[in-house]
Protein backbone atom coordinates (compact mmCIF):
# COMPACT_ATOMS: atom_id res chain seq x y z
CA UNK A 1 0.00 0.00 0.00
CA UNK A 2 1.31 3.43 -0.93
CA UNK A 3 1.82 6.09 1.72
CA UNK A 4 0.49 9.26 0.14
CA UNK A 5 1.01 12.75 1.48
CA UNK A 6 -2.18 14.68 0.85
CA UNK A 7 -1.19 18.35 0.46
CA UNK A 8 -4.08 19.29 2.76
CA UNK A 9 -4.17 16.47 5.34
CA UNK A 10 -0.66 15.01 5.47
CA UNK A 11 0.53 11.42 5.11
CA UNK A 12 -2.30 8.89 4.86
CA UNK A 13 -2.63 5.29 3.62
CA UNK A 14 -3.51 4.70 -0.01
CA UNK A 15 -6.85 3.13 0.92
CA UNK A 16 -8.15 6.65 1.71
CA UNK A 17 -7.48 7.73 -1.88
CA UNK A 18 -8.81 7.10 -5.36
CA UNK A 19 -6.48 7.24 -8.34
CA UNK A 20 -7.94 9.33 -11.14
CA UNK A 21 -5.57 8.17 -13.87
CA UNK A 22 -3.16 10.10 -16.04
CA UNK A 23 -3.01 13.86 -15.39
CA UNK A 24 -2.83 16.75 -17.86
CA UNK A 25 -5.19 15.27 -20.46
CA UNK A 26 -7.07 18.29 -21.73
CA UNK A 27 -10.58 17.87 -23.11
CA UNK A 28 -10.68 19.42 -26.58
CA UNK A 29 -12.32 22.84 -26.09
CA UNK A 30 -14.63 22.29 -29.08
CA UNK A 31 -15.36 18.52 -29.19
CA UNK A 32 -17.44 18.98 -32.32
CA UNK A 33 -14.47 20.39 -34.17
CA UNK A 34 -11.99 17.57 -33.63
CA UNK A 35 -11.81 14.47 -35.80
CA UNK A 36 -12.34 10.92 -34.56
CA UNK A 37 -8.61 10.29 -34.17
CA UNK A 38 -8.13 13.27 -31.86
CA UNK A 39 -11.26 12.37 -29.89
CA UNK A 40 -10.09 8.75 -29.50
CA UNK A 41 -6.71 10.02 -28.35
CA UNK A 42 -8.38 12.16 -25.69
CA UNK A 43 -10.77 9.43 -24.53
CA UNK A 44 -8.71 6.26 -24.70
CA UNK A 45 -5.01 6.67 -25.49
CA UNK A 46 -2.63 6.91 -22.54
CA UNK A 47 1.10 7.38 -22.07
CA UNK A 48 1.39 4.41 -19.67
CA UNK A 49 5.13 4.96 -19.12
CA UNK A 50 7.57 2.72 -17.31
CA UNK A 51 9.11 5.54 -15.32
CA UNK A 52 7.83 8.90 -14.10
CA UNK A 53 4.05 9.17 -14.40
CA UNK A 54 1.90 12.22 -13.67
CA UNK A 55 -1.45 11.18 -12.26
CA UNK A 56 -4.47 12.62 -10.45
CA UNK A 57 -5.49 11.46 -6.99
CA UNK A 58 -8.58 12.21 -4.89
CA UNK A 59 -8.49 12.08 -1.10
CA UNK A 60 -11.90 10.39 -1.19
CA UNK A 61 -12.09 9.32 2.46
CA UNK A 62 -10.57 12.55 3.73
CA UNK A 63 -10.73 16.13 2.53
CA UNK A 64 -12.30 15.10 -0.81
CA UNK A 65 -9.85 17.25 -2.72
CA UNK A 66 -7.94 16.43 -5.90
CA UNK A 67 -4.21 16.84 -6.42
CA UNK A 68 -1.53 15.71 -8.86
CA UNK A 69 1.24 13.27 -8.10
CA UNK A 70 4.45 12.26 -9.83
CA UNK A 71 5.31 8.62 -9.25
CA UNK A 72 7.86 6.22 -10.70
CA UNK A 73 5.84 3.30 -12.08
CA UNK A 74 8.89 1.01 -12.10
CA UNK A 75 9.43 1.33 -8.34
CA UNK A 76 6.09 2.81 -7.14
CA UNK A 77 8.16 5.55 -5.41
CA UNK A 78 6.23 8.81 -4.99
CA UNK A 79 8.39 11.62 -6.39
CA UNK A 80 6.31 14.70 -5.79
CA UNK A 81 2.87 16.14 -5.20
CA UNK A 82 1.52 19.37 -6.72
CA UNK A 83 -1.76 21.19 -7.01
CA UNK A 84 -4.38 20.68 -9.70
CA UNK A 85 -3.96 23.17 -12.51
CA UNK A 86 -0.18 23.38 -12.11
CA UNK A 87 2.07 22.05 -14.85
CA UNK A 88 4.39 19.10 -14.32
CA UNK A 89 7.26 20.20 -12.08
CA UNK A 90 9.71 17.87 -13.86
CA UNK A 91 9.08 19.41 -17.29
CA UNK A 92 10.14 22.87 -18.49
CA UNK A 93 7.20 25.27 -18.73
CA UNK A 94 5.90 25.64 -22.26
Amino acid sequence: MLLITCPYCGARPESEFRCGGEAHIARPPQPGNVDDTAWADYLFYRTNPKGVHAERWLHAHGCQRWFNMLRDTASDQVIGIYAMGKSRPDRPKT
Partner: protein
Amino acid sequence: MHRFSLRTLLAEALIGHEGWERQWRSPEPKSAYDAVIVGGGGHGLATAYYLAKEHGLTEIAVLEKGWIGGGNTGRNTTIIRSNYLYEESAAIYEHAVRLWEGLSRELNYNVMFSQRGVMMLAHNVHDVQSLKRHVYANRLNGIDNEWLSAEQAKAFCPPLNISPHMRYPVIGASLQRRGGVARHDAVAWGYARGADAMGVDIIQNCEVLGFMRGPDGSVTGVETSKGPIRTPRVGVVAAGHTSVIMARAGLRMPLESFPLQALVSEPVKPVFPCVVMSNTIHAYISQSDRGELVIGAGTDQYVSYSQQGGMHIATHTLEAICELFPQFSRLRMLRNWGGIVDVTPDRSPIIGLTPIPGLYVNCGWGTGGFKATPGSGHVFAHTIAKGEPHPINAPFALDRFRTGRLIDEAAAAAVAH
Protein backbone atom coordinates in the same frame (compact mmCIF):
# COMPACT_ATOMS: atom_id res chain seq x y z
CA MET B 1 12.34 -33.64 -31.83
CA HIS B 2 12.23 -36.50 -29.36
CA ARG B 3 8.53 -37.44 -29.35
CA PHE B 4 7.07 -38.31 -25.99
CA SER B 5 5.27 -41.66 -25.91
CA LEU B 6 5.02 -44.75 -23.78
CA ARG B 7 7.61 -46.36 -26.04
CA THR B 8 10.19 -43.56 -25.61
CA LEU B 9 9.48 -43.46 -21.88
CA LEU B 10 10.17 -47.19 -21.55
CA ALA B 11 13.25 -46.93 -23.74
CA GLU B 12 14.59 -44.11 -21.57
CA ALA B 13 13.80 -46.04 -18.40
CA LEU B 14 16.13 -48.80 -19.60
CA ILE B 15 19.06 -46.37 -19.98
CA GLY B 16 18.46 -44.39 -16.80
CA HIS B 17 16.79 -41.42 -18.50
CA GLU B 18 20.17 -40.28 -19.82
CA GLY B 19 19.00 -39.82 -23.40
CA TRP B 20 16.46 -37.01 -23.09
CA GLU B 21 17.51 -34.05 -25.19
CA ARG B 22 16.88 -30.37 -24.50
CA GLN B 23 13.34 -29.49 -25.51
CA TRP B 24 14.37 -26.46 -27.54
CA ARG B 25 17.62 -24.99 -28.77
CA SER B 26 19.15 -21.76 -27.51
CA PRO B 27 20.36 -20.21 -30.77
CA GLU B 28 22.06 -16.90 -31.43
CA PRO B 29 19.92 -14.62 -33.60
CA LYS B 30 20.45 -14.64 -37.37
CA SER B 31 20.73 -11.34 -39.22
CA ALA B 32 17.31 -11.66 -40.88
CA TYR B 33 13.99 -13.48 -40.45
CA ASP B 34 10.67 -13.67 -42.28
CA ALA B 35 8.88 -12.72 -39.06
CA VAL B 36 9.91 -11.66 -35.57
CA ILE B 37 7.67 -12.13 -32.54
CA VAL B 38 8.43 -9.79 -29.64
CA GLY B 39 7.58 -11.54 -26.39
CA GLY B 40 8.08 -15.19 -25.45
CA GLY B 41 5.03 -15.80 -23.36
CA GLY B 42 2.31 -18.29 -24.21
CA HIS B 43 0.67 -15.99 -26.76
CA GLY B 44 3.95 -15.18 -28.54
CA LEU B 45 5.13 -18.79 -28.64
CA ALA B 46 1.71 -19.96 -29.85
CA THR B 47 1.85 -17.31 -32.58
CA ALA B 48 5.25 -18.58 -33.75
CA TYR B 49 4.01 -22.19 -33.59
CA TYR B 50 0.97 -21.55 -35.80
CA LEU B 51 2.96 -19.31 -38.18
CA ALA B 52 5.31 -22.22 -38.79
CA LYS B 53 2.68 -24.95 -38.77
CA GLU B 54 -0.22 -23.42 -40.69
CA HIS B 55 1.35 -20.67 -42.76
CA GLY B 56 4.60 -22.30 -43.84
CA LEU B 57 6.92 -19.62 -42.47
CA THR B 58 10.04 -21.21 -41.06
CA GLU B 59 12.42 -18.28 -40.64
CA ILE B 60 10.84 -17.00 -37.44
CA ALA B 61 12.40 -15.65 -34.27
CA VAL B 62 10.75 -15.20 -30.89
CA LEU B 63 12.61 -12.53 -28.93
CA GLU B 64 12.15 -12.66 -25.17
CA LYS B 65 13.61 -10.06 -22.81
CA GLY B 66 13.79 -12.51 -19.90
CA TRP B 67 12.99 -16.21 -20.05
CA ILE B 68 10.05 -17.79 -21.85
CA GLY B 69 6.85 -18.02 -19.86
CA GLY B 70 8.34 -15.87 -17.10
CA GLY B 71 5.83 -13.05 -17.34
CA ASN B 72 2.08 -13.33 -17.04
CA THR B 73 2.12 -16.88 -18.48
CA GLY B 74 3.80 -17.96 -15.25
CA ARG B 75 1.84 -15.62 -12.99
CA ASN B 76 -1.82 -16.24 -13.71
CA THR B 77 -4.38 -18.48 -12.02
CA THR B 78 -4.75 -20.73 -15.13
CA ILE B 79 -8.53 -20.47 -15.40
CA ILE B 80 -9.97 -21.36 -18.82
CA ARG B 81 -13.55 -20.60 -19.86
CA SER B 82 -15.45 -19.09 -22.78
CA ASN B 83 -18.70 -17.87 -21.16
CA TYR B 84 -18.35 -14.29 -22.39
CA LEU B 85 -21.39 -12.16 -23.12
CA TYR B 86 -20.75 -10.61 -26.53
CA GLU B 87 -20.59 -12.60 -29.73
CA GLU B 88 -17.15 -11.35 -30.66
CA SER B 89 -15.69 -12.36 -27.29
CA ALA B 90 -17.55 -15.66 -27.23
CA ALA B 91 -16.14 -16.47 -30.67
CA ILE B 92 -12.51 -15.89 -29.78
CA TYR B 93 -12.58 -17.49 -26.33
CA GLU B 94 -14.55 -20.49 -27.62
CA HIS B 95 -12.03 -20.80 -30.47
CA ALA B 96 -9.39 -21.03 -27.75
CA VAL B 97 -11.30 -23.58 -25.65
CA ARG B 98 -11.72 -25.83 -28.69
CA LEU B 99 -7.98 -25.66 -29.32
CA TRP B 100 -7.33 -26.33 -25.61
CA GLU B 101 -9.40 -29.51 -25.91
CA GLY B 102 -6.93 -30.99 -28.40
CA LEU B 103 -3.79 -29.19 -27.31
CA SER B 104 -1.94 -31.93 -25.42
CA ARG B 105 -2.25 -34.24 -28.42
CA GLU B 106 -1.46 -31.44 -30.89
CA LEU B 107 1.75 -30.53 -29.07
CA ASN B 108 2.65 -34.06 -27.90
CA TYR B 109 3.02 -32.35 -24.53
CA ASN B 110 0.79 -32.75 -21.50
CA VAL B 111 -0.60 -29.31 -20.75
CA MET B 112 -2.79 -30.89 -18.04
CA PHE B 113 -5.95 -29.27 -19.35
CA SER B 114 -8.63 -30.30 -16.87
CA GLN B 115 -12.26 -29.46 -17.67
CA ARG B 116 -13.39 -29.54 -14.07
CA GLY B 117 -15.99 -26.79 -14.49
CA VAL B 118 -15.97 -23.05 -13.80
CA MET B 119 -18.73 -21.84 -11.48
CA MET B 120 -19.56 -18.14 -11.12
CA LEU B 121 -21.52 -17.15 -8.03
CA ALA B 122 -24.49 -14.82 -7.74
CA HIS B 123 -24.95 -12.92 -4.48
CA ASN B 124 -27.79 -10.53 -5.31
CA VAL B 125 -30.63 -9.95 -7.75
CA HIS B 126 -28.44 -8.08 -10.18
CA ASP B 127 -25.94 -10.95 -10.25
CA VAL B 128 -28.75 -13.40 -10.96
CA GLN B 129 -30.03 -11.31 -13.86
CA SER B 130 -26.55 -10.76 -15.24
CA LEU B 131 -25.42 -14.38 -14.97
CA LYS B 132 -28.68 -15.70 -16.43
CA ARG B 133 -28.27 -13.29 -19.32
CA HIS B 134 -24.80 -14.74 -19.84
CA VAL B 135 -26.19 -18.28 -19.72
CA TYR B 136 -28.79 -17.49 -22.40
CA ALA B 137 -26.36 -15.53 -24.58
CA ASN B 138 -23.78 -18.30 -24.35
CA ARG B 139 -26.31 -20.95 -25.36
CA LEU B 140 -27.34 -18.90 -28.38
CA ASN B 141 -23.67 -18.89 -29.35
CA GLY B 142 -23.39 -22.65 -28.91
CA ILE B 143 -21.38 -22.41 -25.69
CA ASP B 144 -22.32 -24.55 -22.71
CA ASN B 145 -23.41 -22.68 -19.60
CA GLU B 146 -26.14 -23.52 -17.14
CA TRP B 147 -27.89 -22.01 -14.17
CA LEU B 148 -27.66 -23.68 -10.74
CA SER B 149 -29.55 -23.02 -7.54
CA ALA B 150 -27.51 -22.50 -4.39
CA GLU B 151 -28.14 -26.14 -3.39
CA GLN B 152 -27.06 -27.39 -6.81
CA ALA B 153 -23.96 -25.21 -6.58
CA LYS B 154 -23.10 -26.76 -3.24
CA ALA B 155 -23.66 -30.24 -4.65
CA PHE B 156 -21.18 -29.43 -7.44
CA CYS B 157 -18.70 -27.82 -5.05
CA PRO B 158 -19.19 -29.25 -1.54
CA PRO B 159 -16.81 -26.85 0.28
CA LEU B 160 -19.04 -23.91 -0.68
CA ASN B 161 -20.79 -22.09 2.15
CA ILE B 162 -24.42 -21.37 1.20
CA SER B 163 -25.58 -20.26 4.61
CA PRO B 164 -28.20 -17.49 4.36
CA HIS B 165 -26.41 -15.74 7.23
CA MET B 166 -23.37 -14.75 5.19
CA ARG B 167 -22.83 -11.07 4.53
CA TYR B 168 -23.32 -11.79 0.80
CA PRO B 169 -25.18 -15.12 0.63
CA VAL B 170 -24.85 -17.36 -2.41
CA ILE B 171 -28.23 -17.42 -4.13
CA GLY B 172 -27.27 -19.22 -7.32
CA ALA B 173 -24.49 -19.78 -9.80
CA SER B 174 -23.73 -20.28 -13.45
CA LEU B 175 -21.63 -23.26 -14.44
CA GLN B 176 -19.59 -23.86 -17.58
CA ARG B 177 -18.68 -27.53 -17.34
CA ARG B 178 -16.19 -27.33 -20.22
CA GLY B 179 -14.22 -24.67 -18.36
CA GLY B 180 -11.30 -25.59 -16.17
CA VAL B 181 -7.59 -25.12 -15.65
CA ALA B 182 -4.31 -26.06 -17.34
CA ARG B 183 -0.67 -26.17 -16.34
CA HIS B 184 0.62 -22.72 -17.31
CA ASP B 185 4.33 -23.51 -17.72
CA ALA B 186 3.56 -26.56 -19.85
CA VAL B 187 1.67 -24.35 -22.30
CA ALA B 188 4.73 -22.15 -22.87
CA TRP B 189 7.10 -25.12 -22.96
CA GLY B 190 4.88 -27.19 -25.22
CA TYR B 191 4.52 -24.41 -27.78
CA ALA B 192 8.24 -23.60 -27.52
CA ARG B 193 9.18 -27.22 -28.13
CA GLY B 194 6.76 -27.55 -31.03
CA ALA B 195 7.86 -24.28 -32.63
CA ASP B 196 11.54 -25.08 -32.17
CA ALA B 197 11.07 -28.44 -33.89
CA MET B 198 9.78 -26.59 -36.96
CA GLY B 199 12.85 -24.34 -37.00
CA VAL B 200 11.65 -21.33 -35.01
CA ASP B 201 14.53 -19.64 -33.14
CA ILE B 202 13.59 -18.88 -29.53
CA ILE B 203 16.02 -16.25 -28.33
CA GLN B 204 15.91 -15.48 -24.63
CA ASN B 205 17.61 -12.59 -22.82
CA CYS B 206 17.13 -10.48 -25.93
CA GLU B 207 15.32 -7.17 -25.50
CA VAL B 208 13.93 -5.16 -28.40
CA LEU B 209 15.35 -1.65 -28.11
CA GLY B 210 13.94 -0.05 -31.25
CA PHE B 211 12.52 -0.50 -34.72
CA MET B 212 14.14 -0.01 -38.14
CA ARG B 213 11.91 1.70 -40.68
CA GLY B 214 11.98 1.92 -44.46
CA PRO B 215 11.49 5.08 -46.54
CA ASP B 216 7.72 4.44 -46.64
CA GLY B 217 7.60 4.13 -42.87
CA SER B 218 7.15 0.36 -42.83
CA VAL B 219 9.05 -1.87 -40.45
CA THR B 220 12.28 -3.32 -41.85
CA GLY B 221 13.72 -4.76 -38.66
CA VAL B 222 14.31 -4.47 -34.95
CA GLU B 223 17.25 -3.26 -32.89
CA THR B 224 17.90 -5.65 -30.05
CA SER B 225 20.30 -6.10 -27.17
CA LYS B 226 21.90 -8.82 -29.33
CA GLY B 227 22.24 -6.61 -32.40
CA PRO B 228 20.02 -5.61 -35.33
CA ILE B 229 17.69 -8.14 -36.96
CA ARG B 230 16.10 -7.45 -40.35
CA THR B 231 12.52 -8.59 -40.92
CA PRO B 232 9.48 -7.36 -42.85
CA ARG B 233 6.99 -8.49 -40.16
CA VAL B 234 7.06 -7.82 -36.43
CA GLY B 235 4.37 -9.09 -34.06
CA VAL B 236 4.42 -7.44 -30.65
CA VAL B 237 2.99 -9.70 -27.93
CA ALA B 238 4.46 -8.01 -24.88
CA ALA B 239 1.49 -7.93 -22.47
CA GLY B 240 2.10 -5.37 -19.71
CA HIS B 241 5.09 -3.87 -21.54
CA THR B 242 3.26 -3.30 -24.85
CA SER B 243 3.06 0.46 -24.30
CA VAL B 244 6.81 0.54 -23.63
CA ILE B 245 7.67 -1.40 -26.81
CA MET B 246 5.21 0.49 -29.00
CA ALA B 247 6.56 3.82 -27.72
CA ARG B 248 9.89 2.72 -29.26
CA ALA B 249 8.06 2.65 -32.58
CA GLY B 250 6.57 6.06 -31.84
CA LEU B 251 3.05 4.79 -31.15
CA ARG B 252 0.77 5.53 -28.22
CA MET B 253 -1.65 2.79 -27.18
CA PRO B 254 -5.09 2.75 -25.50
CA LEU B 255 -3.62 0.75 -22.64
CA GLU B 256 -2.82 1.09 -18.97
CA SER B 257 -0.68 -1.43 -17.09
CA PHE B 258 -1.69 -2.50 -13.60
CA PRO B 259 -0.34 -5.05 -11.12
CA LEU B 260 -2.61 -8.08 -10.73
CA GLN B 261 -1.94 -10.34 -7.77
CA ALA B 262 -2.36 -14.03 -7.15
CA LEU B 263 -1.40 -16.26 -4.27
CA VAL B 264 -1.17 -19.92 -3.37
CA SER B 265 -1.74 -21.71 -0.08
CA GLU B 266 0.30 -24.49 1.43
CA PRO B 267 -0.46 -27.77 -0.37
CA VAL B 268 -3.27 -29.90 1.01
CA LYS B 269 -5.06 -33.10 -0.02
CA PRO B 270 -7.61 -32.77 -2.85
CA VAL B 271 -10.37 -30.67 -1.31
CA PHE B 272 -11.59 -28.52 -4.16
CA PRO B 273 -13.16 -30.08 -7.25
CA CYS B 274 -13.68 -27.13 -9.60
CA VAL B 275 -13.04 -23.44 -10.19
CA VAL B 276 -15.21 -20.95 -8.30
CA MET B 277 -15.36 -17.27 -9.14
CA SER B 278 -17.27 -14.46 -7.51
CA ASN B 279 -17.19 -11.14 -9.29
CA THR B 280 -19.29 -9.40 -6.67
CA ILE B 281 -17.14 -10.08 -3.63
CA HIS B 282 -14.12 -10.59 -5.85
CA ALA B 283 -12.54 -13.95 -5.32
CA TYR B 284 -11.53 -16.80 -7.50
CA ILE B 285 -10.10 -20.09 -6.42
CA SER B 286 -9.12 -23.54 -7.65
CA GLN B 287 -6.76 -26.25 -6.48
CA SER B 288 -3.63 -27.15 -8.41
CA ASP B 289 -2.54 -30.73 -8.95
CA ARG B 290 0.22 -30.08 -6.40
CA GLY B 291 -2.50 -29.41 -3.83
CA GLU B 292 -2.06 -25.67 -3.44
CA LEU B 293 -5.17 -23.54 -3.48
CA VAL B 294 -4.62 -21.01 -6.26
CA ILE B 295 -6.32 -17.72 -5.47
CA GLY B 296 -6.65 -14.68 -7.69
CA ALA B 297 -6.90 -11.15 -6.32
CA GLY B 298 -7.69 -7.89 -8.08
CA THR B 299 -5.64 -5.15 -9.68
CA ASP B 300 -4.22 -2.14 -7.92
CA GLN B 301 -5.76 1.16 -8.86
CA TYR B 302 -2.63 2.81 -10.26
CA VAL B 303 -0.34 2.23 -13.24
CA SER B 304 2.69 0.19 -12.22
CA TYR B 305 5.37 -2.06 -13.68
CA SER B 306 6.68 -3.21 -10.28
CA GLN B 307 5.20 -6.76 -10.44
CA GLN B 308 3.95 -6.35 -6.89
CA GLY B 309 0.67 -5.08 -5.56
CA GLY B 310 -0.65 -3.76 -2.28
CA MET B 311 -1.28 -6.21 0.53
CA HIS B 312 -4.74 -4.75 1.10
CA ILE B 313 -5.80 -6.01 -2.34
CA ALA B 314 -4.83 -9.59 -1.49
CA THR B 315 -6.40 -9.25 1.97
CA HIS B 316 -9.69 -8.19 0.42
CA THR B 317 -9.78 -11.35 -1.69
CA LEU B 318 -8.78 -13.61 1.20
CA GLU B 319 -11.61 -12.18 3.29
CA ALA B 320 -14.02 -13.15 0.52
CA ILE B 321 -12.47 -16.63 0.23
CA CYS B 322 -12.81 -17.20 3.98
CA GLU B 323 -16.44 -16.16 3.88
CA LEU B 324 -17.23 -18.53 1.01
CA PHE B 325 -15.07 -21.37 2.35
CA PRO B 326 -14.72 -20.96 6.13
CA GLN B 327 -12.72 -24.20 6.39
CA PHE B 328 -9.83 -22.52 4.54
CA SER B 329 -9.48 -19.76 7.14
CA ARG B 330 -6.64 -21.57 8.93
CA LEU B 331 -4.65 -22.36 5.77
CA ARG B 332 -1.36 -20.53 5.46
CA MET B 333 -0.49 -18.75 2.25
CA LEU B 334 2.83 -19.85 0.76
CA ARG B 335 3.54 -17.23 -1.87
CA ASN B 336 1.99 -14.20 -3.46
CA TRP B 337 3.15 -12.31 -6.50
CA GLY B 338 2.05 -9.80 -9.09
CA GLY B 339 1.98 -9.68 -12.84
CA ILE B 340 1.62 -6.57 -14.98
CA VAL B 341 -1.54 -6.67 -17.04
CA ASP B 342 -2.29 -4.32 -19.94
CA VAL B 343 -5.89 -3.19 -19.73
CA THR B 344 -7.90 -1.61 -22.55
CA PRO B 345 -10.77 0.84 -22.02
CA ASP B 346 -13.38 -1.80 -23.03
CA ARG B 347 -11.59 -4.73 -21.35
CA SER B 348 -11.32 -6.59 -24.64
CA PRO B 349 -8.01 -7.39 -26.33
CA ILE B 350 -6.43 -5.70 -29.34
CA ILE B 351 -5.27 -8.12 -32.05
CA GLY B 352 -4.40 -6.82 -35.45
CA LEU B 353 -2.71 -4.22 -37.59
CA THR B 354 -1.16 -0.95 -36.43
CA PRO B 355 -0.73 2.34 -38.30
CA ILE B 356 2.82 1.18 -39.17
CA PRO B 357 2.94 -1.29 -42.10
CA GLY B 358 4.54 -4.57 -41.09
CA LEU B 359 3.97 -3.98 -37.38
CA TYR B 360 1.26 -6.08 -35.75
CA VAL B 361 0.10 -6.09 -32.15
CA ASN B 362 -1.60 -8.58 -29.85
CA CYS B 363 -2.21 -7.02 -26.45
CA GLY B 364 -4.80 -5.73 -24.02
CA TRP B 365 -5.74 -9.13 -22.63
CA GLY B 366 -5.88 -7.45 -19.24
CA THR B 367 -6.67 -9.77 -16.39
CA GLY B 368 -7.83 -12.70 -18.53
CA GLY B 369 -5.34 -13.63 -21.22
CA PHE B 370 -4.17 -17.10 -20.25
CA LYS B 371 -7.42 -18.81 -21.27
CA ALA B 372 -7.11 -17.39 -24.78
CA THR B 373 -3.51 -18.48 -25.41
CA PRO B 374 -4.07 -21.03 -28.22
CA GLY B 375 -6.83 -19.04 -29.95
CA SER B 376 -4.95 -15.78 -29.66
CA GLY B 377 -1.80 -17.27 -31.17
CA HIS B 378 -3.79 -18.98 -33.90
CA VAL B 379 -5.59 -15.88 -35.17
CA PHE B 380 -2.58 -13.61 -34.67
CA ALA B 381 -0.44 -15.94 -36.79
CA HIS B 382 -3.07 -15.68 -39.53
CA THR B 383 -3.03 -11.87 -39.20
CA ILE B 384 0.76 -11.67 -39.53
CA ALA B 385 0.99 -14.19 -42.38
CA LYS B 386 -1.83 -12.71 -44.48
CA GLY B 387 -1.39 -9.06 -43.55
CA GLU B 388 -5.07 -8.91 -42.60
CA PRO B 389 -7.05 -10.19 -39.62
CA HIS B 390 -8.73 -13.57 -39.30
CA PRO B 391 -12.56 -13.17 -39.16
CA ILE B 392 -12.43 -14.01 -35.45
CA ASN B 393 -10.05 -11.21 -34.53
CA ALA B 394 -11.26 -8.63 -37.06
CA PRO B 395 -13.60 -6.99 -34.46
CA PHE B 396 -10.64 -6.64 -32.06
CA ALA B 397 -8.84 -4.11 -34.26
CA LEU B 398 -6.94 -1.21 -32.71
CA ASP B 399 -9.04 1.07 -34.88
CA ARG B 400 -12.21 0.33 -32.87
CA PHE B 401 -11.23 3.04 -30.40
CA ARG B 402 -11.47 5.57 -33.26
CA THR B 403 -14.64 4.20 -34.84
CA GLY B 404 -16.36 3.66 -31.50
CA ARG B 405 -17.17 0.00 -32.27
CA LEU B 406 -16.13 -1.15 -28.79
CA ILE B 407 -16.59 -4.68 -27.41
CA ASP B 408 -17.55 -3.56 -23.97
CA GLU B 409 -16.89 -6.60 -21.80
CA ALA B 410 -16.06 -4.07 -19.06
CA ALA B 411 -19.76 -3.29 -18.81
CA ALA B 412 -20.64 -6.97 -19.20
CA ALA B 413 -18.37 -8.29 -16.47
CA ALA B 414 -18.06 -5.19 -14.28
CA VAL B 415 -14.79 -6.46 -12.81
CA ALA B 416 -11.70 -8.40 -13.66
CA HIS B 417 -12.35 -11.31 -15.96
